[in-house]
């Protein structure tokens, strides 16, 4: 939305000492966000009016001419190729240093002194398109230069001044006025400026209309739910021509392309009051009959941009007695648009339900200046002001035109007057500073609220243009007062509150701890990946994509499903990093989404429907040059340390995973907490490097429920321990765990047993392996003697032989 300072000057006198920049800042601090300040005159800097005194042929070029141009105090020699050059013509001279667009295309360039085919030229005689005035002065022929002879201009005058193109335009962020239907027009913005600067605002005055002839315009509102008000007025005897320059340049200043006088008037009012209007060609309206009703299923309609559109069922339509003539509040129809030979028109000023317009506009993907305003919930009162003003302007622009019907007004305005009782204490308490009562009253009055004050309470009547949605509760009044009073006047003060009991948050603490632990002690690098699962890896891992939650609107098909595991994305990232690193470890802690299980989060207040499970998982990938066995032991060691860090007494069991060479579950009692393993090496593209890939993934949300108590202190040993080593040959597939269990049972003196070497080779037989391990013995009540241990060692060897046919090496 553009604010034109020239435009608002119709109703107020801005303080002289306020620069455009300051005004933009003041608006930003009190009302809306300003994106940019555009100075029209600056765009036309160093462009002046010139009068052609002499034209001679260019010595070296047939199509060029050399002109002597009077630019006020001096005469300039300029080379020009204009097709319409004549002596005495008033033209726009772009001088050295001005900004132009060659042939109206491409980037702006700064003019420099130049020799054109050997003749020096001091600037150029510009075409309208070359100096950004193509909309105001449309060109008929591409070599045509801008002819200003018909205008009251003098040579030497800066062009901006000569044509009144000296507006300051403030570009306002539309997002910041989504909630303010009143600010979608210049008058509403003027009202804000008046409140901010404490200046007088002229009332927006319109005259009543007197019909010259009694046309029969009939308006029937069938859909009262969605059409709050509909005003129609017939005008006959109009002549559709180009608008006068002041109107065209005012529209152009706010970014609207002038079309013809009738359409320009409707656009002018749209931008002045924020009220969309529409003009129909009365010839095309059957029986002077207008009806507002809903579209039926399967219907279509050609809008004035020539597009045939499939209408959503229930779309609000304007019809005559035979056909649809407009898509209400969004766009007119091609069948009834104003054309060059239109003489009789019907003007519409209506008010439609915000939700209805928004819905249709979203479904059709068709946004317009009109729909953008209706969906903000406009004030139905303004429609009447707007149609009167439009008629007045058309009558002024077309001297032969007459009002040809009564002003038909079907008014079902549903908005009630809003009155609020706002305790003075609410304003001051929220603000944190006491604002004098008189100041509060004054601010509200400047914003056109009616205010009275009794028993420390403000009784406030909200003006209709703020009462459609915007202002409805006392807190809204707090904002109105505070923003005009100035947020800068608020005193920063830390809140004084009662201490609260600490709330233990194991998930939060454990998450932080384990991330640090992995990064700082386990050489793991934390990565973040998208929630969208990598489908290439899902396929490679032979996972079922159907079990993943599908997006209705994915940014790309590859990002069409949510993660059910973190591994596909981590493996993808691991593969990518192979370009730079041969060995590395990465991990991530994030949520994954499982539609097959009910989660803990409910969907609404009733708390009886639930979202899918979205537990946090902790997963890692290790790319290593170690052998598969070494890597397996490394990851097993990682899981063990992690579990002992958390105090979880875990166990493991082999499982089959389609993508793993070997995989094992991480279990606590019967609960599966996760799994780990070695990736099938054929799946991973290592770019030729000889690496193995290990992976692990844990259900973090589940796991933290089993985090154990702090370890209990044990007395330090009073007597020394004795260490022995033992090596035995056993069957190759005997699990270490079985040996350990047996050995620990042999004697209460056994403290610890740990394998340190495994050997496999033909010398001991193909189906055998040799395991060497450390043994630690200790007694709590005496110093052990070698003989004590010898006896135990004998027992161990004996037991192992009996149980596993082990042979001592």
């Amino acid at each position, binding site marked *: 939305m553009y604010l034109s300072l020239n435009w608002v000057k119709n109703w107020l006198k801005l303080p002289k000492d306020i620069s455009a920049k300051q005004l933009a800042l003041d608006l930003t*601090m*009190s009302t809306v966000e300003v994106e940019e300040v555009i100075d029209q005159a600056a765009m036309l800097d160093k462009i002046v009016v010139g009068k052609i005194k002499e034209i001679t042929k260019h010595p070296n070029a047939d199509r060029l001419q050399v002109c002597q141009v009077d630019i006020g105090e001096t005469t300039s020699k300029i080379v020009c190729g204009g097709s319409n050059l004549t002596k005495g013509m008033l033209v726009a001279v772009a001088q050295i240093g001005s900004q132009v667009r060659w042939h109206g295309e491409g980037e702006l360039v700064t003019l420099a002194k130049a020799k054109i085919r050997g003749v020096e030229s001091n600037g150029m005689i510009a075409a309208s398109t070359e100096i950004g005035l193509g909309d105001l002065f449309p060109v008929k022929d591409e070599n045509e230069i801008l002819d200003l002879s018909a205008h009251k201009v003098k040579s030497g005058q800066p062009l901006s001044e000569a044509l009144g193109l000296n507006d300051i335009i403030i570009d306002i962020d539309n*997002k*910041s*006025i*989504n*909630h*303010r239907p009143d600010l979608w027009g210049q008058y509403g913005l003027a009202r804000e400026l008046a409140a901010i600067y404490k200046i007088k605002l002229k009332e927006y005055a319109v005259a009543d209309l007197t019909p010259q002839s009694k046309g029969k315009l009939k308006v029937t509102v069938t859909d009262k739910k969605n059409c709050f008000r509909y005003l129609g007025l017939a005008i006959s005897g109009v002549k559709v021509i180009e608008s006068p320059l002041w109107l065209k340049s005012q529209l152009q200043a706010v970014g609207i392309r002038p079309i013809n006088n009738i359409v320009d008037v409707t656009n002018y009012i749209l931008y002045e009051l924020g009220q969309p209007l529409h003009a129909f060609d009365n010839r095309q309206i059957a029986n002077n009959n207008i009806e507002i009703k809903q579209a039926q299923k399967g219907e279509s309609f050609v809008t004035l941009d020539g597009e045939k559109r499939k209408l959503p069922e229930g779309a609000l339509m304007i019809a005559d007695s035979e056909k649809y003539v407009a898509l209400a509040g969004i766009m007119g129809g091609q069948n009834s648009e104003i054309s060059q030979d239109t003489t009789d028109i019907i003007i519409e000023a209506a008010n439609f339900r915000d939700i209805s317009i*928004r819905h249709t506009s979203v479904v059709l993907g068709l946004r317009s200046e009109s729909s953008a305003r209706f*969906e903000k919930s406009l004030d139905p009162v303004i429609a009447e002001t707007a149609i009167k003003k439009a008629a007045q302007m058309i009558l002024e622009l077309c001297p032969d035109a007459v009002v040809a019907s009564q002003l038909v007004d079907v008014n079902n305005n549903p908005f009630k007057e809003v009155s609020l009782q706002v305790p003075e204490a609410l304003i001051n308490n*929220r*603000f*944190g500073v006491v604002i004098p009562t008189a100041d509060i009253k004054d601010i509200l009055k400047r914003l056109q609220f009616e205010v009275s004050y009794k028993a420390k309470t403000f009784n406030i009547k909200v003006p209709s243009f703020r009462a459609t949605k915007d202002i409805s*509760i006392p*807190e*809204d009044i707090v*904002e109105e007062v*505070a*923003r005009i009073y100035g*947020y800068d006047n608020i005193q920063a*003060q*830390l*809140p004084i*509150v*009662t*201490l*609260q009991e*600490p709330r233990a*948050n194991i998930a*939060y603490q454990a998450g932080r701890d384990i991330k640090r632990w992995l*990064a*700082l002690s386990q050489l793991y*690098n*934390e*990565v*973040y*990946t*998208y*929630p969208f699962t990598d489908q290439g890896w899902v396929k490679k891992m032979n996972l079922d994509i159907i079990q993943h939650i*599908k997006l*209705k*609107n994915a*940014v790309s098909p590859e990002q069409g499903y*949510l993660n059910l595991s973190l591994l596909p*994305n*981590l493996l*993808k*990232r691991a593969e*990518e*990093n192979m370009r*730079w690193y041969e060995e590395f470890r990465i991990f991530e802690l994030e*949520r994954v989404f499982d*539609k097959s299980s009910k989660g803990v*989060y409910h*969907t*609404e*207040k009733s708390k009886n429907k639930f*979202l*899918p499970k*979205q537990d946090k998982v902790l997963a890692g990938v290790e790319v290593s040059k170690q052998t598969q066995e070494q890597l397996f032991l490394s990851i097993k060691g990682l899981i063990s340390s992690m579990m002992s860090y958390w105090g979880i007494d875990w166990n493991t069991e082999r499982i089959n995973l389609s993508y793993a060479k070997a995989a094992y579950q991480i279990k606590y009692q019967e609960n599966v907490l996760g799994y780990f393993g070695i990736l099938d090496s054929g799946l991973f593209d290592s770019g030729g490097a000889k690496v193995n890939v290990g992976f692990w993934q844990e259900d973090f949300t589940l796991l933290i429920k089993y985090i154990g108590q702090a370890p209990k202190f044990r007395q330090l040993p009073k007597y020394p321990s004795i260490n022995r080593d033992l090596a035995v040959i056993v069957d190759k597939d005997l699990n270490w765990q079985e040996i350990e269990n047996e050995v620990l049972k042999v004697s209460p003196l056994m403290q610890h047993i740990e394998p340190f070497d495994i050997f496999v080779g033909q010398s001991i037989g193909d189906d055998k392996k040799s395991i060497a391990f450390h043994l630690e013995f200790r007694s709590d009540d005496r110093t052990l003697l070698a003989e004590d241990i010898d006896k135990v060692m004998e027992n161990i060897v004996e037991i192992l032989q009996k149980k596993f046919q082990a042979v001592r090496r």
Partner: protein
Amino acid sequence: MEKKLQDLKKTFMSEMDNVKDSQFLADLKKKYLGRKGELTGILKEVKDMASEEKPRVGKLANEIKEELTEVFNKTEKIIKNKGDQAIDFDPTMPGTKRQTGHLHPSTIVQQEVEDAFVSMGFSVYDGPQLESDYYNFTALNIPEEHPARDSHDTFWLEQNWLLRTHTSNLQVRMLEKHGAPFRGIFPGRCFRYESTDASHDHTFFQLEGLMIDKGINIGNLIATMKSLLSAVFNTDVDVRLRPGFFPFVEPGFEMDIKCLVCEGKGCSVCKQSGWVELMPCGMVHPEVLKAGGVDPNEYSGFAFGLGLTRLVMMKYRIDDIRLLESGDLRFLKQF
């Protein structure tokens, strides 16, 4: 004789003071205490002295001998402990690499911000990323067809679920669960359906804050954020409020921070304005309090949505947001 002994002691002591190495020390030992040393010589003379003087001088000579021996031993210990000659290593050689892993820069910044809030008595909470329309929009005073939904480009899923567009989805959930008074922050991942470029990503991090208590006002919001941001940026920061519209707060604000690059003088980072837009915030709307089961007549509060990803980019001067989710270790190992 006595004088001779005292002189000997004096010269011994002064020579001992100058001992630098063990060689010199050995020479001194030979010179004074050795078999042919000076003290031994005097002791020999004592033998030949008259008997009435003998016990007195003998005693003194022995005392001096003990004293000198003691001083000598002490010095010897000090000299010996000096060990070998100093070595000059090449300090320009690279040290043996001690490998370490790295936390993600967003994690680092998030933890810093969390710590600052926790020290001010806020608790840290977490919640769903896959969310219902109700908690993401409707409960926050953004009913269906509300134009504010336009600025939330949403990823939609089956059953009308969605990926949360902001961490504000936890406001009503947390009030339902914990009630008032409440002081909490909810950091986490949010999503917007939009195409990515150097400054936009469809996945980003926010940190929502919510404080509900009796008599909370706008000045409290400013002071809290000012203290907190000063802690995060490790310098005294200046903030300002200006109007901003968000349906779940009333009044609503945009909070700007005085440009840390130019200190408010105007530069390319702040587009010459001296201020950088930092976060939306406001006083919690009574409808939101009601949705969370809190009586708006009794309690008021503020809420804010800090853009964590933006903060990370500001802090480390990262110029491409996509690096954060790239998993590229060349990037991640820098933090």
